């Protein structure tokens, strides 16, 4: 019972959450998010890999460039060295070397041109300017002096020395450049290898991470779809096996939560329906039994009661007392038979008509007081309303409620009868100052033969409720202000169409017809 109520609480919570947020984080949305995350992750990895590849490409390009520059610088250096060597030999008198020298010089100029192209952006720098200046100087020296000297056969040692000095200066500068380019090249080589290594690491990480991530997404989908589906399936199977206590505990605010709540509501409704069915079967069984019972008991009871009444009225003393007791019990049997029959005919109501409930309550209280059945010192009747129903039947209900209240309140207690009209109908509220009714007793109070009293048959309230329901109303149990019991009888309101009012006037004028006949009969006799 407790577990069930907490389930219901859960269901209600989900409902509230659903309503509060308006937009539900539905399973569809969740799946969409999961797949989107997967696709986004792959795209990100792809972008990362591409950018790494491009960075590696760029680094390789730089490396090649520096290598090229280095090569040019080295070539130039070697050309210059060659030129110096040849020059030395020429100066030494070996004129054969002139051609080689020219070649070397041409090569030197060629590489110098290349160097200019390669190091164009560094032209403003000191070394480049130096190389430029020294090269021009050198060319002049070579072209103007040394060549001339060679052709003329006159050694110009000074100029040779000067050319050597220039070449040495250029070499110095170029050595610096070479060293620098060497360093740059090494640096770029390191960058490239670093890039390659890290890219490899990332790719490896991706190869390991992708399946893990995909598996996680899969698990998430399984959690949010497969598991609820499995639970629902399991619940449905339990229900199919006839377990009406089945409840599915999914309190997520998505379709499955809603489905589970619906499922739980359905099983609850199914259970209520089945209980009602069982109850009505029970009542129908009681009814069939009662009808047969009553029919069979009526005649014996008639005879018993008839003779008791005849003889009790003629008897004296002890015999009269004993017969009175027998009569009382026989009357009780008669009442039980009647109550049972009343119960066995649910939903059948004689023509309903407006009943002044205030008048009815006053009448009942007066009648009970006159017959000494109202022990409480204080009985208050207040309010006014008209209900639609059978006056006799409603009187029976009010008598039952008021005499129950009187018994509960005791001699020193009080009873309050409040008649009121509402949009739903007319109500008669009977409250007493008695001890009240326990929750356990409330659940069974309307069951036939359930009673909390020593003398009751346990049919009064069952019959009263059957009558109230036959009217389209009901009887509810509550608690009075003083902690006693409060029973509320509700019946449909007396919305009287004009046509029916006319009928009532007809009735008022027509009813005495028979008594007039009777009176006439007596007079004529």
């Amino acid at each position, binding site marked *: 019972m407790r577990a069930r109520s907490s389930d219901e609480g859960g269901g209600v919570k989900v409902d509230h959450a659903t309503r509060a947020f308006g937009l539900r984080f539905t399973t569809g949305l969740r799946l969409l998010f999961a797949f989107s995350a997967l696709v986004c992750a792959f795209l990100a990895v792809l972008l990362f890999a591409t950018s790494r590849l491009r960075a590696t490409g760029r680094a390789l390009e730089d490396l090649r460039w520096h290598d090229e520059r280095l090569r040019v610088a080295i070539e130039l250096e070697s050309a210059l060295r060659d030129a110096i060597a040849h020059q030395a030999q020429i100066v030494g008198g070996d004129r054969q070397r002139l051609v080689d020298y020219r070649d070397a010089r041409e090569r030197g100029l060629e590489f110098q041109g290349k160097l200019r192209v390669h190091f164009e952006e560094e032209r403003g720098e000191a070394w480049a300017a130096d190389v430029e200046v020294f090269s021009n100087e050198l060319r002049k020296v070579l072209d103007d002096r040394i060549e001339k000297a060679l052709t003329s056969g006159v050694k110009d040692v000074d100029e040779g020395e000067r050319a050597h000095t220039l070449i040495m200066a250029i070499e110095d500068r170029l050595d610096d450049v070479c060293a620098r380019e060497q360093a740059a090249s090494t640096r770029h080589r390191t960058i490239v290898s670093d890039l390659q290594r890290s890219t490899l690491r990332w790719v490896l990480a991706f190869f390991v991470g992708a399946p893990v991530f995909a598996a996680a997404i899969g698990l998430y989908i399984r959690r949010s779809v497969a598991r609820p589906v499995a639970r629902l399936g399991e619940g449905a199977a339990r229900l199919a096996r006839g377990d009406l206590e089945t409840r599915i505990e999914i309190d997520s605010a998505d379709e499955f939560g809603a489905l589970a709540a619906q499922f739980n509501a359905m099983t609850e409704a199914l259970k209520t329906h089945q209980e009602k069915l069982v109850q009505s079967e029970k009542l129908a069984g009681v009814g069939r039994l009662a009808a047969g019972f*009553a029919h069979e008991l009526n005649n014996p009871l008639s*005879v018993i009661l008839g003779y008791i009444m005849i003889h009790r009225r003629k008897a004296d003393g002890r015999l009269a007392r004993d017969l009175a007791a027998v009569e009382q019990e026989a009357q009780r049997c*008669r009442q039980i038979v009647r109550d049972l*029959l009343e119960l066995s005919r649910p939903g059948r109501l004689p*023509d309903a008509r407006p009943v002044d409930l205030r008048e009815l309550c006053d009448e009942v209280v007066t009648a009970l007081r006159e017959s000494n059945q109202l022990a409480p010192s204080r009985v208050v009747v207040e309010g006014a309303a008209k209900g639609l129903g059978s006056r006799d039947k409603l009187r029976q209900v009010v008598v039952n409620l008021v005499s129950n209240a009187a018994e509960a309140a005791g001699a020193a207690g009080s009873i309050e009868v409040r008649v009121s009209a509402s949009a739903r109908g007319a109500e008669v509220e009977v409250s007493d100052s008695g001890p009240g009714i326990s929750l356990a007793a409330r659940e069974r109070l309307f069951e036939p033969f359930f009673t909390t009293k020593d003398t009751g048959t346990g049919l009064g309230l069952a019959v009263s409720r059957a009558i109230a329901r036959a009217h389209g109303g009901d009887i509810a149990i509550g608690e009075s202000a003083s902690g006693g019991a409060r029973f509320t009888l509700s019946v449909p309101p007396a919305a009287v169409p004009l046509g029916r009012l006319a009928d009532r006037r007809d*009735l008022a004028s027509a009813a005495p017809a028979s008594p007039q*006949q009777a009176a006439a009969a*007596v007079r004529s006799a």
Partner: protein
Amino acid sequence: MTMAPRILVADDKANVVDLVATILENYDVTRAADGAQAIDLVSKQKFDVVLTDVRMPGADGFEVLQAVKRSTPATQVIVMTGFATVPDAVMAVKQGAYDYIEKPFDPDDVALAVARAVEHGRHTVTQADAREKPQSEDGAPGKQTTAMPYREAVEAARDRASRDYLVALMREFGGCVTWAAERAGMERESLHRVLKRYGIHSEDFKTSTTPDA
């Protein structure tokens, strides 16, 4: 003193018949053990009042009622019924029965109903060609079924008829219960109880000529 009114009691339960006969000991009571026997008796003899059960083997109360209406229209029929078959009894009143008695019954009620029925029958006999017709044809309840449940109407009419009958009875005998009881075919005590129940005080009707009761 005229002959005691003739009453036919029809019920398949012998004990019920005996009980009714005991209650109606001032009348000339004939017994019928079932519907068929009752119909047979009605066709051969004349009764003032017929008390019949609704459900009987052979022929039911309705058939007995029809037989009485056919052979001796002046005979008043009172239907005896269990609580469960009250609607049937009300139907019988609709079809011309004078009244119905619900089982288990108070002997006083039986005595009073029979006394009224006897008076009603005498009236019908003395005014054989009167315009007044049996209760069912122009009687009160016939037309009000839509406004007031027929049964309630019958019961209300019965209450007023009983009261009017008792008042008329008291007036006629100047408040002398003994004479009135003799006339009504009831026990004196029984009449006392019935008067008390209807709130009628016999002293109110006493005149100087009334003997002490």
